[in-house]
């Protein structure tokens, strides 16, 4: 499975990447929306895991751009703010994970949504 993770926290990116690669996924990371979008244009991803709140452009803005490129793109939002769950699902996200979560939740989500 090809997965793109967009999060402005480097430690999270590396953590998720290392962990998911153990499960055989091919993972790319991006530190902000702009570089994430660049990567999305160049590669076909089965799933985009994206932080909702990032410095710079937030997850909503970036997800609109992604759907602008591929309207069927699957996006899984992660956030510490539970109030935006409905909003992201409403927009078309496949799922929402509330931070903090166990790492295995993210593997389960990948199994579930893809």
């Amino acid at each position, binding site marked *: 499975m090809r997965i793109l993770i967009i*999060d402005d*926290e*480097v*430690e*999270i990116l*590396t*953590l*998720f990447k290392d*962990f998911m690669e153990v499960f055989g996924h091919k993972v790319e990371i991006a*530190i*902000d929306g*702009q*570089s994430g979008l660049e990567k999305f244009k160049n590669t076909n991803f089965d799933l985009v895991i994206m*932080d909702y*709140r*990032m*410095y*710079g*452009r937030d997850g909503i803005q970036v997800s609109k751009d992604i759907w602008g490129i591929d309207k069927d793109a699957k996006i899984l939002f*992660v*956030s*510490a*703010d539970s109030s935006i769950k409905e909003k992201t699902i409403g927009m078309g996200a496949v799922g929402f994970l509330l*931070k*903090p*979560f*166990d*790492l*295995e939740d993210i593997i389960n989500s990948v199994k579930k949504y893809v």
Partner: protein
Amino acid sequence: MKILVVDDNETDLYMLETLLKGNGYHVITATNGVEALEKARQEKPDMIISDILMPKMDGFQLCRELKKDEELKDIPVLFYSATYTNEGSRKLALGIGAVDYIIKPMEPDEFIKIVKKVLDEYGKGELKPTEKPLEEKVYMKLYNERLIQKLEKKMLDLEKSEKYIRHLNGVLRAIGSVNQLIVRENDRDVLLQKACDILIEARGYSATWLGFLKDNKNFATVAGSGLREDISRFYDHVMRGDHPPCIKKALAQKDLVMVVDKTKECRDCFFKNAYPRKETVIIRIENGDKLFGLLAISLASDVAVDSEEKGLLKEVANDIALALHNIELEEKRKQAEEALRESERKFRNLIESVPLGVSISTSRGNVSDVNPAIWKIFGYDSKEEFVEVSGEDYCYNPKDRERFVELHKKGVVKGFETRFKRKDGTVFWGSVTSTTRTTESGATEFINVFEDITNRKRLEQQREKSKKEAEFYADVLGHDVGNLDQITMGYLYLLQIAKDEETRKKNINGIKRSIMKSKRLAESIKTLKIIKDTKIEKFDLNESIERSIKNIKEYSDKEIEVKLDIDKHYYVKANDFLDKVFFNILENSVEFIFQDKVIIDIKTEEKNDFCNVHIHDNGIGISKEKREDILENLETLSKRTGMGFYLTKKILERFNGKFEIKDVKKGTEIVVSIPVINGGSARNVHAQRSHKRNEQEGRR
């Protein structure tokens, strides 16, 4: 039949002539005895009717001359008089040959009857003198007696009428004086007493009292003149509302003037002694429907109250009433004026003392009046100086002024906020509220109220800033803490499933970093709170850089190589918090480098009393978009900036320093500028040494 009528009173003469002609007689007239004698000789009348008292020749003498004339002696003479009314006169008249003696006035029918009878008898020749003609001596005696009696009566009549005229003159004088008094006296009580005095002094009346009412039946004040001690007892009664019958009656009645018979109506009159006559005259002093009071007078004992007197009294009463009415109007006018002045005074005081600026301007924008606060607010030295200045000069923003003028045209402007210029050119925030009013001349005026709202604006800005800060904290903390929680959870999970020691150690280090980060986040918040109150001191920049490098190496498990190019030893105007600036920048570099080896170049240079510290890394760099985001939002402060940059900015601001994110091809370059104390001297050996040590440590 021809009748000669003799009378010096033309009215009487005319009346008799008309009466007789009306009854078919031919009438000849004469106005005195001499004329009558002549006409009698010419006309030979059938009868002569004569008055007695006449000039030139009276009736008695005329009769005597007629009887001496042979041709005229038989003509019957009839006397008709109002003057000689006693028996002596009648006797004399008949004694000298008159046929009858009629006393004026007499009913016309009766008179004609007598005339007819005399003429009938004369025609028949039956008319004979009733008495023997008097002898000359007797006649003269009787005649002289009549004359004296006549004079006495005349004298008495004259005396009486002179006295009456004197009295009326006195009353008229009194009225004149009261009139003058009314014109000049504005005090009710003084008017009252003086009017009483005048009425007495002018000798018109023997005693008088005058009372003014406060309502329909109670007196406010009473004064009298010519009443001696009786007034005090009267005063006591009247002032407590215990009115004598005459006052009760006068208050209740409609007629202006009332004559009271004291013997019948008020036996216990207070003024029995002071009022010599039994009548008292009470006059209501009223104007329109309003009864102001009562005026009572008593006349001298020998002068009667007649209609003329009543008329004069009414005049006095009307004048006094009018004066009272005018005093009342004057008092009301004075009260109104005083109230107006008072309110003007209060208004003026208010305007003068309020901290708000007030100006009054015409519809053309010319300022007509201002209060002291306004020119003080605008920093001018006087009202005159301020009034000279045009609106363009003290409005900072011409567009705001245009907008204000537009609003002004529509009428009321409430709390219009704009910036103004003081005399010295400094700018302040002010609020204007403006309202229009129409002046007495019909022109439109604007009343403008200015308020210096600099403080309020500052508070508003502070509040806005605090609000943004609060939002920032909520956002940033929500974001950063959320991430830290996730990292901790992630490492914990990995720790649980770790199979070898090395993996376990790595995960434990991750958890440690998270905890460190949390701790530093808390420290950052604390720093933001206290930084503006920290003391600036002479601070060793070189050592601060060294400590920061050491700390970042301890913190990160990445391999870090720092290349130092320090040109000299710097002492800067800063404090311990400068370490955090360098640590934050270094941490940022370390975190955003995905390579295993982190290379950071640090270079110093002095420029315009500032030391510029260039920190350049070999990381992924900050995208143009993100850099712009950070720089744009650094001023207004938001989650787009992030805690690290915001804290860096705040600390450097405290030192009057700043930082810049340079647009470089590879990696990120941040330049920190801090004011230096000394320019340093020799190239710093210490920094070179630490450079080497860092390199060694970095390798380790």
